[in-house]
């Protein structure tokens, strides 16, 4: 019995969903079923979000009760979550003035800062890894240096940096990325087929 619940039924659900998605691609009447299936996936994803939140909350409560190392940061996480849930559920949902204020000064600011911190990591990564260790690495270093310096406004006065950079971004990038994308497509088709045939069971 458990093997039916555990293997056969999930395989049937996944296989049926794939076939419905194929059908929607070619037959108009299938569109209604396919749209419904996509909405179901969004609903299940929403429940998965709830589940993830519950398991994270359990993890942090256990960390607090057992005084694991750094348990006070667990309190901060739960406090942050509670505060956001309270203001988010104030009418109109995720639209109240308190929500906008908290979202602006915590979520948006943190998002922009953690994105801005990439300037630290990319400059250090460039300094440490763009080294002429081999012929291939030299190709990467030369292309990177040209395209980076071309974005400094002053480079327009110091020679053809910008045209060279736009050539690198137009010709070699197009050629290489197109080859990568075509082969990725082949891989996705084979992966989907293996899920359909039950050879691959990501829900395992």
């Amino acid at each position, binding site marked *: 019995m458990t093997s039916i619940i555990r293997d056969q039924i999930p395989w049937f659900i996944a296989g049926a969903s794939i076939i419905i998605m194929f059908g929607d691609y070619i037959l*108009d009447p299938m569109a209604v079923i396919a749209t419904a299936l996509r909405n179901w996936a969004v609903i299940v994803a929403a429940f998965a979000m709830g589940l993830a939140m519950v398991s994270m909350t359990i*993890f942090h409560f256990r960390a607090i009760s057992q005084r694991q190392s750094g348990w006070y940061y667990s309190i901060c996480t739960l406090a942050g979550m509670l505060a956001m849930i309270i203001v988010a559920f104030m009418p109109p949902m995720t639209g109240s003035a308190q929500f906008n204020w908290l979202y602006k000064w915590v979520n948006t600011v943190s998002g922009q800062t953690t994105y801005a*911190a990439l300037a630290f990591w990319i400059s250090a*990564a460039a300094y440490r890894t763009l080294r002429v260790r081999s012929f291939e690495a030299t190709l990467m270093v030369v292309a990177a240096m040209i395209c980076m310096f071309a974005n400094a406004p002053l480079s327009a006065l110091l020679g053809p940096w910008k045209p060279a950079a736009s050539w690198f971004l137009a010709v070699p990038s197009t050629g290489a990325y197109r080859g*990568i994308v075509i082969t*990725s497509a082949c*891989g996705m*088709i084979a992966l989907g087929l293996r899920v359909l045939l039950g050879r691959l069971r990501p829900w*395992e």
Partner: protein
Amino acid sequence: MIRSGNVLDFVVMIGLMIAIYLMMSRAEKKMPKLRRIPALDALEEAVGRAAETGRPILFTQGSGGTGTLSHPEEGPQIMSGLNVLSHLAALAANLGPRIICCVGQSDSLIPTTEIVREAYIAQGMPEAFREDDIRFLGSGNAYAFAAVDIIRTEEVAAAFFIGPFYNESLTFVFHSDDVGAMKIGGTAFTHQMPFFAAVCDYFMIGEEIYAAGAYLSGEAEELGSVVGEDFAKGFSIILIILAVAAASFGLSGFLNFMRI
């Protein structure tokens, strides 16, 4: 009734899948030999190194947030990453280092936990499985910084980044390089490949992560599916050569027919 414009795509799709299926069944008789994927051969070395230093290994798949499993581009990458995770977890159960999984997508929390649990059960050590090491860390940069916090405080010995990454890929590879961890990356998102290529010790590009599951399983039928994919690549190469030849002789008629 029939949706116009998609007919040829549909025929090509079914044709390629049949070719792949045929190669899968033919592989039973003659085991196909594939070229090496260095990143996958390095998995054992990375986990072994972690076991020696007594430091944990870390696996993560990027910050998709919600609805990633059913996303056309992120879903397949998560599934191929989970393929690699099942082998990694088996190696970790065998060789002994702790395996920490940072989850940035809520829908892959269940499969990630189940895969690592099954790996420990398969190695006969269900009690060694630590569910607390499968950590859900929200999404976006909040997940990225929480995971970097774990990378730095746990001083992980090896870090595996296989899946749909966004701008957090650079944050991960830089900080794991900073703590001296061995880095193995893989993604099909072209916009993140430059950072994996520049910083990671081993790096899988697009198709290599999709073929990873089949490559690691070593089963004849799975390897057969990779041979089937090569058919599709051969089909693309020949098609391009023909069309380029036609274009250079000005045969645009032939080109228009090919313009699908």
